[in-house]
């Protein structure tokens, strides 16, 4: 075919495809009729081939960019993800995919738990052995309240002065932010995540040790356990996601480092987003149940129940049932 014949033949088809793409607009192929869509899928491969042909005939740049643009637009339109599927997939995601991803990456979680618990226990022991070191670990948090006069009632009272609504909003968003930052900093070869895990665990260990030194351990548990168990667990899960992200660069296995990063990121981001509901529940407990006037033992029970339900969901839901084979 001569270039002239090629242009003459194909021009009407390019115009037609352009018309179809304009009909579709920017909102995907939903605006096209069934017939139009069918026509477009039929014409698109020929347009893609035309890009090569225009290059082969060494035609001008305007023609090339026009056909190339048409092909890109059609390509973007036709090779689209199924939006509807991902919408109905939410339930499947909650009931199956998320717990499965959680269990698949449980080794990172164990790693994060170790990273959290070892510094916490060691800080606790140090503070128990040398009470004064508490002020070294937490120079700001403890200075404000003169520790000799503080009682459990004071702590609770400070909580009760604030409005539950405001508190749950600010605490929840702050916690989610810490989790997202812990994940995001994981990209610095997991170092940032380690820093967040360490600083939180040292703070907690020092806190527990300091209160125990002053004989307030029971009150502390009444105050900490209802929301703290779930909250700390969620922070550790977010840390595990950050560790996975960082380690995917450090240990790429048989992929290139960038490819390994992409793979790690797309899995671990789901991992960290799953902590958001946990933080919302924890924030709710922290602002409405922790400061409430009822038996501390019941509050602790609620805390353990919240953590237990979360764990049961993550570990048990969506497990493949043993397959029935006949």
């Amino acid at each position, binding site marked *: 075919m001569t270039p002239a014949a090629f242009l003459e033949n194909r021009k009407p088809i390019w115009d037609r495809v352009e018309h179809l793409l304009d009909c579709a607009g920017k909102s995907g192929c939903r605006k096209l009729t069934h017939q139009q869509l069918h026509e477009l899928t039929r014409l698109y491969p020929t347009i*893609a081939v035309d890009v090569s042909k225009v290059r082969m005939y*060494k035609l*001008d740049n305007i023609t090339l960019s026009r056909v*190339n643009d048409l092909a890109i637009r059609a390509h973007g339109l036709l090779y689209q993800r199924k939006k509807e599927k991902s919408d109905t997939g939410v339930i499947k995601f909650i009931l199956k995919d998320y717990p499965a991803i959680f269990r698949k990456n449980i080794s990172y979680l164990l790693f994060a738990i170790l990273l959290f618990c070892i510094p916490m226990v060691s800080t606790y022991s140090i503070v128990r052995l040398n009470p004064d070191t508490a002020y070294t670990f937490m120079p700001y948090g403890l200075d404000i309240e003169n520790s000799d006069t503080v009682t459990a009632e004071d702590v609770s009272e400070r909580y009760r002065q604030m409005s539950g609504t405001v508190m749950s909003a600010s605490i929840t*968003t702050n916690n989610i932010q810490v989790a997202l930052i812990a994940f995001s900093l994981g990209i610095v070869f997991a170092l940032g995540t380690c820093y967040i895990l360490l600083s939180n665990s040292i703070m907690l260990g020092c806190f527990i040790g300091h209160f125990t030194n002053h004989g307030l351990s029971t009150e502390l548990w009444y105050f900490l356990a209802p929301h703290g168990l779930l909250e700390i667990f969620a922070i550790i899960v977010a840390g595990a996601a950050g560790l996975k992200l960082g380690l995917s660069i450090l240990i790429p296995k048989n992929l290139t480092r960038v490819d390994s990063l992409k793979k790690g990121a797309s899995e671990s981001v789901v991992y960290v987003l799953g902590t958001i509901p946990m933080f919302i529940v924890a924030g709710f407990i922290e602002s409405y149940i922790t400061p409430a006037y009822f038996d501390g033992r019941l509050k602790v029970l609620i805390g353990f129940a919240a953590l237990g339900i979360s764990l049961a969901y993550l570990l048990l839901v969506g497990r493949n049932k043993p397959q029935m084979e006949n």
Partner: protein
Amino acid sequence: MIEYDVHDKIETPENVELTRTIAGLGSRISAGLFDYLLIVLIFLVIFFILALSSNVFSYRGGSMSDFVLAAFFIGMFLFYWGYFAFFEWITNGQTPGKKSVHLRVVCENGSPITFKHIAVRNIIRFVDMLPGMYFLAIVFIFCSKRKQRIGDMAAGTIVVSEEKLQYGATDKVNKKNDNWQMEITAEVLEKSGLSPEELNIIQNFYVRRSELSHDAIVKILPGILKPIMSRQGTWRDDMSISEMLDYIECTLQI
């Protein structure tokens, strides 16, 4: 020739290479500035409304101001982490700022972005912003081959320019006379009997002629036309420049 634009190649399932222009640092910064300007504006409006409504509600003695304060915390959080993600999600990769300079976030393979891509690139935005003013992002966009910030690398996304391709010199001519398109039509091809390559050379010369001095035209033009015209048997050594220009205009049917 210096390539100013970085092009990215997409291989389609039909084994054809499509090219798209990757957005440069400048357009991405201007998109970002636009977005942040919008954020500040929206925020001022929301702040104003909240402040006003909290006054109204506390005047009536209700505890509504608590809700307003709570809404403020949640709003701050959603804006900080969700503005870019939200717009990229509903528009398939275009925040208002990106739209204003015709940019779009797409996957490296050219397909539209999914929720996971959006989540990754916008959570890691936090690292890109370190230590302030998107310093790391700028360094990475400047240095990386496909102009990706850290979040883009982790998500496997690129930011492409959707502006129509324009060619420096032809652009000027296009503006002068609207009907003049540097496009080889079937008609021209047939009547001139030249190959597309030859027509391209002639066209490129014709478009740039106004930028060339007369001396330069005298020097270049015979060199361009001699091989083409002698093949057709119309070349004479004593042709004047205006005759050659006539030939070109006749060939291109102007």
